[in-house]
């Protein structure tokens, strides 16, 4: 277990470094970053000034080194639009996005896992077909359109829920649905496939031969094993969802990381964009690492090697 953890941790750190290099070099995509940072209509002198202040005149490897050292100390740069340290702005917005992500994940899992289980109990039954149709339809709906449709019906036509902002928990219902539904098809399919696989296994027959109640067989013996791959998927998808929050937060005017990202892109706030990409990537790396650890915990074949 220790070896496994260390190996997994090593890979995670390596990926994090690679991502940091990539998000660092993003700034060079535009050609000369000094020109981009100085803004339109800047004189040559201004550009040279920017180049010196930001250190763009030094070799790239040195620039990266000092950027990395700063980043590790929690200094992700300075937003030239908000006139504030990038890190503090990001950590101010992060909790909102995390809350949205957690709600969305909860919505997706609570919908998808029962559907998957029900579908697997009687394959090819009416319920199974309905669940599969939900998955197929769900996969084809653009999230922003789904969000607008929710607003149209729940917000405008029936006036059940507030449309924008983060004033109360009610504000989070529609965004969570809009962000979370995209995950349900994958989770549902995986739960169903896992359950089908497990239910036909020998140890389920053993459990039934012991005379265990159907519910015990289903939830203690089957779901526990079927759910293991779902854990990994949920972690991976949670990372994707944080990336996808940019669309949903923009629509619902939720003042989180996604909205911040969109604003920064609009304002060409390069350090901020760079930092958000980095933070979300690192967060994703952390998530998958934790998911692997959780997997090891759930599956004794990995844990007790």
């Amino acid at each position, binding site marked *: 277990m220790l070896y496994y953890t260390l190996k997994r941790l090593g890979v995670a750190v390596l990926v994090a470094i690679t991502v940091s290099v990539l998000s660092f070099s*993003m700034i060079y995509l535009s050609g000369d970053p000094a020109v981009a940072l100085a803004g339109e209509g800047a004189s040559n002198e201004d550009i040279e000034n920017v180049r010196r202040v930001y250190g763009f005149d030094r070799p790239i490897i040195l620039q990266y080194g000092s950027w990395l050292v700063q980043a590790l100390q929690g200094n992700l740069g300075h937003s030239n639009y908000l006139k504030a340290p990038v890190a503090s702005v990001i950590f101010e917005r992060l909790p909102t996005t995390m809350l949205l992500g957690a709600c969305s994940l909860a919505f997706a899992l609570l919908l998808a896992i029962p559907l998957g289980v029900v579908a697997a109990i009687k394959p090819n039954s009416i319920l199974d077909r309905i669940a599969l149709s939900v998955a197929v339809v769900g996969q084809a709906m*653009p999230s922003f359109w789904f969000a607008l*449709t929710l*607003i149209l019906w729940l917000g405008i036509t029936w006036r059940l829920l507030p449309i924008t902002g983060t004033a109360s928990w009610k504000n989070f219902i529609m965004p969570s649905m809009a962000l979370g539904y995209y995950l349900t098809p994958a989770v549902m399919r995986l739960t169903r496939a896992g359950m089908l696989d497990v239910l036909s296994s020998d140890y389920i027959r053993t459990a039934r031969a012991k005379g265990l109640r159907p519910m015990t067989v289903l939830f203690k013996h089957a779901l526990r094993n079927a759910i293991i791959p779902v854990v990994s998927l949920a972690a991976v998808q949670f990372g994707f969802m944080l*990336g996808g929050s940019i669309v949903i937060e923009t629509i619902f005017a939720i003042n989180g990381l996604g909205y911040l990202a969109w604003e920064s892109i609009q304002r060409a706030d390069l350090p901020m964009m760079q930092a958000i990409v980095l933070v979300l990537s690192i967060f*994703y*790396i952390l998530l*998958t690492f934790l998911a692997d650890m959780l997997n090891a915990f759930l599956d004794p074949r990995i844990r007790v090697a």
Partner: protein
Amino acid sequence: MTIDTVKTQVTTDSQEPSPGAMMRKRIFTHWGFMIGAFVLIAIFLMALLAPYISPGDPFDQVLSRKLIPPIWSDSAKATWEHPLGTDHLGRDYMTRLFYGARISLLIGFGAMLISGVIGTTLGVLAGYYGGRVDMVVNFIITTRLSMPVVLVALAVVSIVGSSLTVVIWVLGLLIWDRFAVVMRSATQQVRALDFVTSAQALGCSTPRILLTEVMPNITNHLIVIATLEMAHAILLEAALSFLGLGVQPPEPSWGLMISEAKGMIFFDPWLITIPGLALFALVLSINLLGDGIRDVTAPENRN
């Protein structure tokens, strides 16, 4: 308590139907495949024939005729001249919908092609060589997965500047991960089979083995992933355009049409519903087709 003994006389067909006939039967009895193919062909024709079947011009603005509702509305303004109405600039909505199909299909196909080449190359190499190559490719895949697609795409497009070509390339360079993952495991499976070993024993060159022995046996996986990724790219383009960083106005992209209409959600919700439904139908049909191809080519792998 005896159940009726059903005395079925088994009629054993002396002649098994040919594989081709069985395949045709599977295709024609697979409703998902049929619906998907039908809708996709319809949308494709719509895009191809847009200049001939459109009621108007996609860029012609007639401000006096703006926001005409579609013909099924009760409004007296509805007219057969504009079956789906007009947008906030008085452009014919049906025409823009038809031309929008071109953009979605073009971007979906282009991005799928680019990502397919990258992902398949990486995946096949990793699966075939294993060992260190596999480790490196795995690392690249993990790194790619850890970067948020929408955000990176938006950032890059905003830095480089937006155009149809840029969007295709950015998406293509970003969404190859599933190709790589699936092709890798498919190649691993094929690689272990005896005919590959015998080809190696015969001294065939590696490129030859990859092209003539491995590729044909992973094509069905490739096609399935290709459809999924095409749908994925179309959805991503729509999202980018919706956020204002994909296809630029006045081009008629479905995502952009929804974006332009989102301020009018209170009074003219059909402006959002129509392109949304079009996107939904396109993506759904591609997905159904992909699922259908998977079922039809490998019936034993279902579920």
